[in-house]
């Protein structure tokens, strides 16, 4: 027999995972620095590279990292995505652009929003500057930086930037070695 009722067409079936998170020893100084308005990376002495965000291990060498390096709040866009569809639960109103930004002094890119320009203007090699929220609301997170905005400087050649970064890392690596030998 049939059931002479309109079928239930859809229902909410959310799944929630509730965690109580504790910051690791490696990331804790970074989170405290964010609250002071400082951007902290880690130097990997094995590779000479400056890692950001500092998760406590160098992905290339496996070395545990702890040497803090204060980074600039300016950087270069090395990749970006423009989002046109709304993301459920997100405060962001599309279209918006998320970029991989290589902060000056770092060898790893981080993701953040780009604003104060037309989305068509965002380009690989664009120089950007962090726009901070008011210091009164700073907390232990990267959210203290509201977004990055273009500095107006000319586009950077990404390949040349990579070579510069690698050369600097090599210097740091040698310096770290010298320090150990001494």
């Amino acid at each position: 027999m049939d059931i002479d009722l309109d079928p239930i067409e859809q229902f909410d079936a959310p799944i929630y995972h509730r965690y109580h998170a504790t910051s690791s020893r490696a990331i804790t100084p970074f989170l405290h620095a964010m609250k002071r308005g400082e951007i902290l990376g880690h130097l990997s002495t094995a590779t000479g590279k400056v890692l950001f965000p500092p998760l406590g291990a160098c992905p290339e060498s496996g070395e545990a990292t702890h040497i803090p390096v204060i980074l600039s709040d300016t950087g270069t866009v090395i990749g970006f995505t423009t989002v046109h569809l709304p993301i459920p639960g997100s405060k962001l109103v599309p279209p918006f652009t998320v970029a991989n930004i290589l902060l000056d002094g770092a060898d790893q890119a981080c993701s953040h929003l780009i604003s104060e320009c037309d989305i068509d203007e965002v380009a690989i090699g664009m120089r950007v500057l962090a726009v901070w929220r008011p210091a009164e609301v700073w907390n232990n997170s990267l959210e203290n930086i509201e977004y990055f905005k273009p500095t107006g400087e000319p586009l950077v050649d990404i390949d040349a930037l990579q070579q510069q970064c690698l050369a600097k890392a090599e210097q740091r690596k040698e310096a770290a070695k010298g320090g150990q030998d001494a």
Partner: protein
Amino acid sequence: MTVPDNSLLEADFELGFTYTRSPGIIIGKFLAALKQQKIYGIRANDGSVLFPPTEYDPRTAESLDDFVPLSDRGRLLYWTWIDQPRDHHQMSQSFAFAMIQLDGADVPFLHRMLADSPEHLSSGMAVKVQWAEERRGAITDIHGFVSATGG
């Protein structure tokens, strides 16, 4: 509040997957019937009655659509007593996860068995549905099962 610079930081964190699910016509009708406090199984190709209904025959994979009305009574087969329910159980009191076979169905299914203590449960005991006060067309419209003999 100032936190010493070396102190570990703690925070609650919730990761939510806010799914909306479409049950399809067969399950959708079954759920709509639950809202009306009516229970249906579905007849498989070998004549057996499946509860809860499935859209397809578990052996031949053919479509099924022959609903079979079932009673709100059945038998408790086996169970696991949950002495201290946690949040996700959505129960304030101890209960059992139980395999229950409704009268007229040929297979058991998993639901809550409600009792004051596990001593009140026995394999084969007669049970009946306790309906949820608010029904919205979901399997939880059946709040659980209780002893049919009052014990």
